[in-house]
């Protein structure tokens, strides 16, 4: 029963995948599309399997940057949010600025972090990923901590419960779904942020620097293989956060949409 439902949920997606790859391969081979325009999936697969060791090495390098940035940015975002949400006035005063700051193209600051830290280090990319993660987490956690129903607080007060216990028993559970929504966004941002920051100069052990170099040397099969690694790692990161969310918010009803 469970298995049948699973299959029904995923079969259409699988069908689209197979059909998509088939069409792509047929299109490239049938119409003799030049390889610099669009390499065939089979050619990308060859590049992927023959460079596997190097590709995973690059991917791991970049993934460490993304993970470090994610950890730093999200921790800072949560801590600041807890401080700010503690004082209502401070929260409502600062929120518009945090939201506006989120509209700043932060990746464009990558050349500056490259100048601050050695561009060959992981730190220079981690900082960009961290700043990218900070704002959505901060904004969402503040929202979550403040979306507690007044009746719940009043009930707790009527039991003469301390501020800290209210925080633990009421505010944190209310804020968790908000937090995880932000963490999912942040996981994707951290990965993309690290890769794009590497375009502005970085170690050749890294994915982004290699994608840029291969694309400019017209080695598109390898560039695509690197993009596949980046996507696999990005999807893995995202799914890990989703799994963590399911564990942490078991009482919440599941949403239908995967990405929302």
């Amino acid at each position, binding site marked *: 029963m469970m298995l049948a439902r699973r299959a029904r949920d995923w079969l259409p997606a699988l069908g689209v995948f197979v059909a998509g790859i088939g069409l792509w391969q047929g299109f490239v081979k049938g119409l003799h599309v030049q390889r610099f325009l669009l390499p065939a999936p089979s050619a990308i697969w060859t590049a992927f399997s023959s460079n596997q060791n190097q590709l995973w090495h690059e991917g791991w390098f970049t993934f460490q940057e993304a993970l470090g940035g994610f950890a730093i940015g999200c921790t800072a975002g949560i801590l600041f949010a807890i401080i700010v949400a503690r004082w209502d006035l401070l929260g409502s005063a600062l929120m518009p600025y945090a939201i506006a700051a989120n509209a700043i*193209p932060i990746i464009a600051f990558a050349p500056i972090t490259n*100048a601050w830290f050695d561009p060959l280090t992981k730190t220079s990319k981690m900082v960009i990923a961290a700043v990218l993660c900070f704002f959505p987490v901060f904004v969402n956690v503040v929202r979550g901590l403040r979306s507690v129903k007044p009746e719940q607080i009043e009930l707790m007060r009527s039991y003469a419960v301390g501020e800290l216990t209210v925080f633990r028993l009421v505010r944190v559970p209310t804020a968790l779904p908000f937090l995880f929504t932000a963490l999912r966004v942040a996981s*994707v941002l951290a990965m993309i942020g690290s890769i794009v920051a590497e375009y502005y100069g970085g170690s050749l052990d890294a994915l982004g620097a290699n994608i*840029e170099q291969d694309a400019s040397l017209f080695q598109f099969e390898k560039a695509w293989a690197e993009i596949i690694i980046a996507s696999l790692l990005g999807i893995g990161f995202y799914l890990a956060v989703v799994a963590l969310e399911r564990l942490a918010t078991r009482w919440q009803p599941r949403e239908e949409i995967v990405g929302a």
Partner: protein
Amino acid sequence: MASVAVERPLAEDAPVKRARRRGLLLLAVLVLLWGFWEGFRALGIHYGWQRPFTVDATSMPHIHDMIWALFQRPNPEAPLLIVTLLKAAAFTGREAALGFAMGATGGFAIGALLAHSRMLQRGLLPYVVASQTIPILAIAPMVVIWLASVQVTPWVSVAVIAAYLTFFPVVIATIRGLQAADHRAVELMRSYAANRWTVLWKLRFPMALPFLFSALRISATASIVGAIIGEQPSSIAGGLGGAILNFAQYYSFQPQNLWATNIIAAALGIAFFLVVVAAEKLVVRRAPEHVA
């Protein structure tokens, strides 16, 4: 009666008061940021901080130097920096605006399609989600080559890259928004023999607007990021992305120029965001409570 007459002017004063308070707050925040920057800089230089980064005049130029740099010529033949940067911002803004329009329209169309078919949603939505983990900016050079082969000018290619970054939040918000209509309202319209199309435009679409606008606010920023980063592999020098690359090369001599460029880029991002917020205020009068 008397109390009403006394209270009325007070009520009219409130927006003015609020505006003044907001202005003061903005000033306070800016002064605070300025103080933090200059304070950190002064302490760092005085004590010779090497961590987290070496604090000196190159890594942290004075804020007044960044502003001052806007009104100077980077080299004797060049126009004032602010003129160059405003032109670049207009160029990038045009790419981003076109990309935003394409991405928002396309995203809404895809979202509306997926919202009406379970099957399509199951088949395609995982890829819409997965598409976001693909560093599109990585294939930006290829996108430019593809589109150049069908005679598309480079700046339009950059707009396509911006559109790709724009469409995802809109798709998700459209699906959620179109499905958020109250079942009773849908049933009521059905009982009046309204067809699917009428239900979509008269009921589902207005209900989806708040969702849509919260997505458009995210997309506004994404389109600017897409335009700035997309310019790099396309070797377009006229926009902000080109300016950032250019000044990044001279960072050790004139750090304030890169900072000034990034200030303009930040301002462009915030301006785009505010335009969407203003449009939302005009279109959506009432705010449903459950929109994140």
